């Protein structure tokens, strides 16, 4: 079980963080390629949300009849975009925060508990990036403290 790398994409589709934890898991790409990849993924993510074949039928009657006694006007959950992608060599999990930031974690195909790992990364992000007075929103992340905590967290998982 190995975590290969982490990519963070801001809400406009720009690459703001990219780190490889394990050499040889994935091909090495140039920074430019990573930027293109982030943009592509951002677009694809939006399309995959639109492709939803299930047209939330059960919610319809509820929202159509606002006067139902005791009924709460519910708005159906918006369809989510791509969450997990599998290929023969790796697995990609995407976590989309409510603020539109995407965390992409590349692991090998047998990695378990990716949800937990990615949640923890989100926590580290909100601690060591968002609370840092020198970080500018939507800009590339350059925070030593975040790097350090992230590396030790992933190292723990990869050495398990």
């Amino acid at each position, binding site marked *: 079980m190995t975590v290969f790398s982490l990519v963070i994409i801001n809400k406009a589709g720009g690459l703001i963080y990219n780190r490889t934890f394990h050499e040889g898991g994935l091909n090495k790409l140039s920074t430019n390629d990573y930027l293109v990849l982030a943009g592509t993924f951002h677009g694809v993510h939006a399309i995959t949300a639109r492709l939803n074949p299930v047209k939330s039928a059960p919610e319809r009657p509820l929202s159509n009849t606002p006067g139902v006694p005791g009924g709460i006007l519910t708005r159906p959950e918006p369809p989510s975009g791509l969450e997990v992608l599998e290929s023969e060599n790796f697995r990609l999990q995407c976590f989309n925060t409510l603020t539109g930031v995407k965390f992409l974690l590349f692991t090998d195909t047998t990695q378990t508990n990716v949800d937990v790992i990615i949640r923890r990364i989100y926590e580290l992000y909100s601690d060591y990036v968002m*609370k*840092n*007075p020198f970080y500018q929103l939507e800009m590339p992340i350059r*925070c030593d403290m975040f790097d350090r905590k992230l590396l030790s967290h992933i190292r723990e998982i990869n050495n398990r």
Partner: protein
Amino acid sequence: MSNAGGSGGGSGRAGESRLRYPSNGKTIYHRPLNRTKTAELSKAAFAYLFAEMVSYAQRRVTGIQELEKRLNLQGHPIGLKLLDLLLFREPPRSQLRPLNIIALLHFIKINVWTHLFGRQADRLEKSSNPETPDEFMIIDNEPLVNAYISVPKEMSQLNCAAFAAGIIEGVCDGAGFPARVTAHTVGDTSGSNGSGGTGGAADGEMWPGRTVFLVKFQPEVLEREALIGAKS
């Protein structure tokens, strides 16, 4: 309370009009605002507030020195006021302000630090350099104010604990020991400013955010200290 005089519960009301002073001597000023068992403040709330303080101080400054100066100034009045509060909270017989440098530094290391950060400072050192007998060091391995802060490379000289240094400076000034206090990062460099301290490179690796608060007293303070020492 003038209209309360004629009513039946006069004795009770009369007590209210005076300042209430409980028999055990613990007034409202002894108690923190947050009265739960684990009196804690949100670290996140502080972190966000401090982040904004740093960004605010960063506006309209030209250099790192000026930025540190601003942070220092923000902390200074806190130290002045905090000294009064902490001395007042001391048990009545030890309710004295520190009279010599060592007592003052211990007061800062233990009382001020515990009040502000929930623990004592890690170490206290005197400069071993004979040319600077007026320099003392308070060492904190990971200052709370820097918990979430990564200083960018181009500003590596900066240590945002200048704010905490300002608080210390305020305490020193208030106690009648005028001093200049500055904060320095000693994370990766070995030793601590050639102070002859025990902290080596290994310690520096373990505590990358280790900060030294350099307290430099004014010459008159040392003069006075020498006089007191000669008398006793």
